[in-house]
């Protein structure tokens, strides 16, 4: 039986972008407020899951031709390297630092190395979650 998915598909086309925006917001909010790499990554992954639900796997794979195992691996790599980066400067493993910069148009912005670490976490979460979902759903 073919189910008509037109409503789900057209709604999710818009909702995916809202979710992605929320994910980015949560990701950057995580520095001083609830949020962060893990939660941002989970929300990001949920948008992929929504796409997988609304469309079939082949379409999504054609649209996003990325191996999510490698996404997870690169995320973990970023986490580890950002931890090891501190050791090169003689600081203890996983040390972080931050500084304030004056950017044009934005004014004073706080930039911190934790963001690199969090990027890694987010990528790892997205990679792992989507890999798990795909590995279950692929051969049904």
């Amino acid at each position, binding site marked *: 039986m073919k189910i008509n998915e037109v409503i789900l598909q057209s709604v999710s086309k818009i909702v995916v972008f809202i979710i992605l925006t929320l994910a980015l917001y949560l990701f950057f909010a995580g520095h001083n*407020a609830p949020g962060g790499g*893990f939660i941002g990554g989970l929300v990001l992954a949920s948008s992929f899951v929504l796409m997988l639900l609304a469309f079939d796997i082949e379409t999504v794979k054609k649209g996003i031709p990325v191996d999510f195992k490698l996404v997870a691996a690169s995320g973990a790599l970023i986490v580890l390297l950002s931890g090891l980066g501190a050791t090169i400067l003689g600081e203890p493993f996983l040390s972080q630092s931050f500084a304030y910069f004056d950017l044009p148009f934005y004014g004073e912005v706080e930039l911190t190395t934790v963001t690199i670490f969090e990027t890694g976490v987010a990528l790892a979460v997205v990679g*792992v*979650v989507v890999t*798990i979902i795909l*590995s*279950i759903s692929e*051969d049904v």
Partner: protein
Amino acid sequence: METVIIIVAGVLVTVATYLLLSKNLIRVILGTAILTHAVHLLLMAMGGFKGESVPIISDKHTTYVDALPQALILTSIVISFAVTAFFLVLAYQVYKRTNTDDLSKLRGYRHE
């Protein structure tokens, strides 16, 4: 508040134990998931609640809760998430290979 949470954790442990002892594989997995959630509640209760405080130091809040248990819970949630996901994939694979999710039919080494 602590009392309520502790009781809820106890109830969850009971449920988890019941599920863990059943013969259905999916129930066992759900049991382990519920057990970890019960433990998370316990961890939270161990940190104390202090009314409605949040684990953030800022100008708006005068009292704040110990943030460490929350960090522990977050770590543990991540781990249990990974373990449960892996366990579910495994259960699915087992079901595909053996066509059963009844644990008494999934006896191992000596019965093969």
